[in-house]
């Protein structure tokens, strides 16, 4: 039958295929050293945004896939527990991506008219990392939450193919 012929053409040994693709892998462009966010730059960014306050873990949930099929578009939903009343609400939510070239992903300004402290967006992630979200509350406290993710195809830095 015609179909069967197509599926049996020119069998390539797995070993040869892997060898050739391994060679192609050598052409991945690597970032120069020092071009990534570090623990220090992340801490610096946190200090810049929330000052000297210590974030308290809890009260902030991140919904992030455990494995990113592609780092170019990773869905993220952040929910901060808060009644969102004029007296008690979330002022801002900051998102940090410590495994990326730049440590801060976004800052969302909510306020009393937000109704619900929940944001959904799509991130670009360069490699496997822990995403951190800080929620600044109206009483001056800061709550935090994290989620870890494995990124198999990184964004930002993998320019293997010419497009």
């Amino acid at each position, binding site marked *: 039958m015609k179909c069967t012929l197509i599926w049996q053409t020119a069998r390539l040994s797995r070993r040869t295929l892997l060898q050739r693709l391994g060679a192609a892998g050598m052409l991945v462009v690597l970032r120069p050293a020092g071009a990534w966010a570090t623990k220090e730059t992340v801490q610096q960014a946190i200090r810049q945004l929330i000052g000297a306050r210590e974030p308290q873990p809890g009260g902030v949930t991140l919904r992030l896939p455990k494995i990113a099929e592609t780092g*170019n578009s990773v869905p993220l939903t952040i929910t901060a527990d808060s009644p969102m009343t004029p007296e008690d609400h979330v002022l801002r939510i900051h998102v940090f991506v410590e495994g990326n070239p730049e440590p801060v992903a976004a800052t969302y300004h909510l306020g009393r008219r937000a109704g619900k402290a929940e944001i959904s967006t799509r991130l670009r992630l360069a490699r496997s990392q822990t995403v951190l979200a800080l929620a600044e509350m109206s009483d001056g406290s800061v709550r935090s939450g994290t989620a870890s993710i494995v990124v198999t195809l990184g964004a930002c830095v993998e320019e293997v193919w010419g497009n």
Partner: protein
Amino acid sequence: MQPRPRLPWCESRPDRRWASARVSARVLVSLVVILGAACTGAGLLLAGELSPYTVEDRRSGYTYLSEDNQRLQDDDFANPGLLWVEQGRALWHQADSTTGMSCASCHGDATASMRGVRTRYPHFDSQRGKLINLEQQINRCREQRMQALPYPYESETLLALTTFVGWQSRGLPMHVSIDGPAQPFFEAGRAFYMQRRGQLDLACTHCHDQYAGQRLRGDVISQGQSNGFPIYRHTWQTLGSTHRMFAWCNTSVRAAPSPLGADEYVNLELFVAWRGRGLPVETPAVRR
């Protein structure tokens, strides 16, 4: 080190732990019930003219996506490809020529006039004496009927119109014609598919027939079906056509790509469309 996670959609080799498992009568009965329900579901789907994502041994790229990306494709708001559908809709009604004509002048409401069109392209065109694909047909209409300049291949305008027209056939099964005058071009497309090329000396068939479902470093190789094109591809972070995909694949095996719109790519497009016969049009699909 953490063991590599097993992804549910990857067709991995059978796990030895299951080899010695005994199947109880209860499990058998449950399987029969589930199978019966699935068949009924499939039957209902076919009766409603919409095609399932898997037809015989042909699998749409949708079946190789993570749940998140499947949901993104199905989201009638957030699918980024819809931005091009909307732009295409605007272009459809835009008078853009000395004659003051628009696509709508001849074709009216695209929902009716363009339904089913995507399922038949590319096809043999007697005027050209060779195949014509959807992009070329749109440009032919512009030049000959509207006295307007053709859109460059892969321009935002041509992508938008192609996606808008493709969108009108969403869910309908691909059904290209490969006999009669189209036959030699179909055979040329098949030859291209089977031909080794590039420094890596690989043919399309090696990845997409032989290794479909298996891992390529961090990725899973699909069957390379084209029923979802133009696709919103995360690697490109934008929408792209079939020919852009062919050029990307050629570059990936270190072969010089052909120019977009080249005859060999249109022939290949027909062969690949035939390979995916029966699969639903998913334009605009979301892919990695």
